[in-house]
């Protein structure tokens, strides 16, 4: 009896909800806009997710962040002989804004030279993605990831002065 009652009740509740004055989608979607459309887009339509060959001389790998902080970004760049970044890949353990920041970073470094890529600022990333103040650190980590990848690439280009040089 309770089963039938509860079922009927749920249908009654459904009827009430469905027939309530056309609950405008916007009423509910307003809070959902905490995720900016651009941030969501980087997850729904991922670009440059993946890995390059870490051992290759032309690939620089930057790994920044820490799992204990909830943010880890791996950004890899492939550079041609002329010093131009021809490909970039990323993988991120982090919130939506972190994923979007690192994804955007890979988009921006492509086609730039190694020197030009150093000029990418976290404030530009944050502005492009409309990141709220509480998420600014995600863009900072993305900038760090770019710099770490470039530093790793530079290290690989240095003529081997002997293994003592290595960290």
């Amino acid at each position, binding site marked *: 009896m*309770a*089963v039938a*009652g*509860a079922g*009927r*009740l*749920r*249908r*009654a*509740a*459904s*009827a*009430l*909800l*469905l027939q309530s004055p*056309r*609950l*405008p*989608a*916007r*009423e*509910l*979607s*307003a809070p*959902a*806009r905490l*995720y*900016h*459309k651009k941030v*969501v887009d980087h*997850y729904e339509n*991922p670009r440059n*997710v993946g*890995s390059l060959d870490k051992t290759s001389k032309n690939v620089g790998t930057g*790994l*920044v*962040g*820490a*799992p*204990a*902080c*909830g*943010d*880890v*970004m*791996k950004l890899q760049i492939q550079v041609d002989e002329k010093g131009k970044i021809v490909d970039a890949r990323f*993988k*991120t*353990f*982090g*919130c*939506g804004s*972190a*994923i979007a920041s690192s994804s955007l970073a890979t988009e921006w470094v492509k086609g730039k030279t190694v020197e030009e890529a150093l000029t990418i600022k976290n404030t530009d990333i944050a502005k492009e993605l409309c990141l709220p103040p*509480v998420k600014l*650190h995600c863009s*900072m*980590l993305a900038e*760090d990831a770019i710099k*770490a990848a470039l530093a790793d690439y530079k290290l690989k280009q240095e003529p081997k002065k002997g293994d003592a040089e290595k960290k």
Partner: protein
Amino acid sequence: MLLRAGWRRAALFVTVAPGPRPTVPSRGLRLSVVDDAPQSAVPTDAAAAPEAEVGLRPLYMDVQATTPLDPRVLDAMLPYLINYYGNPHSRTHAYGWESEAAMEHARQQVASLIGADPREIIFTSGATESNNIAIKELEAAIQPDTSLVSVMTVNNEIGVKQPIAEIGQICSSRKVYFHTDAAQAVGKIPLDVNDMKIDLMSISGHKIYGPKGVGAIYIRRRPRVRVEPLQSGGGQERGMRSGTVPTPLVVGLGAACEVAQQEMEYDHKRISKLADQLIQKIMKSLPNVVMNGDPEQHYPGCINLSFAYVEGESLLMALKDVALSSGSACTSASLEPSYVLRAIGTDEDLAHSSIRFGIGRFTTEEEVDYTVEKCVQHVKRLREMSPLWEMVQDGIDLKSIKWTQH
């Protein structure tokens, strides 16, 4: 049943409606509402201009945060919002008398749910106010060495049930006051203030399918527990909480308690079954999933799972058509991960990967199945995007890496 004839007829009318509606299969799942309203409550931001506004209302899986009103509760409240609007403290006319009668009836309903005497129930604005009154009582204690123990009955983040009866036993033998915040437990698990030797208990309306803005505090009379009022005024509620008691809200709270008492066993069985389904299906489809909290002493409707190598907030963003909550730092304003998870010794990276699934009285099996399916799909996808997952697949021990602290 609280359903009145008219309501019942309306419900019947719905159930005999011809055929399934093609555009709206079931509550919450595919409620397509075309938004054609020109004005908006939200300041229009050009950058955030909405696309074709076929809004999907998300499934609600966050019952620990708040619950929808049970229709039977609304049914009980409506007369007091429309016709019977008297002040329950007015002694001189029928409006006051009928409101007072309703208030006392509601008090009886709340008391009977927890095995208390109605004289021991004081209405407040919610469990937070009740907690404040209870803790402040400590300062009003007469003996200098009196102390108070305060324990949550059911934790709102991981669903763990505390051994209330045992704690009550210890407190009463040591002559120490025992307060419990039962906001997540009242109406969901059997509670008896006398069996469990509880001296003070906080109750919240909107956690048990009642209205928001109302709660109650249970204050033991034998032996008498003295409390200091937080707000002073006209001396209502035996001087312990001045202010006109909001009749419609307390009627709602009373009705919610009575409905909870009727439905407790059935709800518990149904929710346990759905919870088991959810956990089994997820654990079967995904490796490296940890359930936080004691598996035995656990209220089934609150499931907290950590999906290793996937960050909680990114999963919430991916599961955009399900309303969920996470213990991750990214979801809190302070960027601190859940203190509850930290207290139970969860690894910090797992604390960032936790999601809380709430199953309640109105959660359907289809909603649970849909949630599980989407969750599995997106966890797999996010793991493909995760450098930690990649490292683990390559056989690297994450604990051996020296991370750059940011």
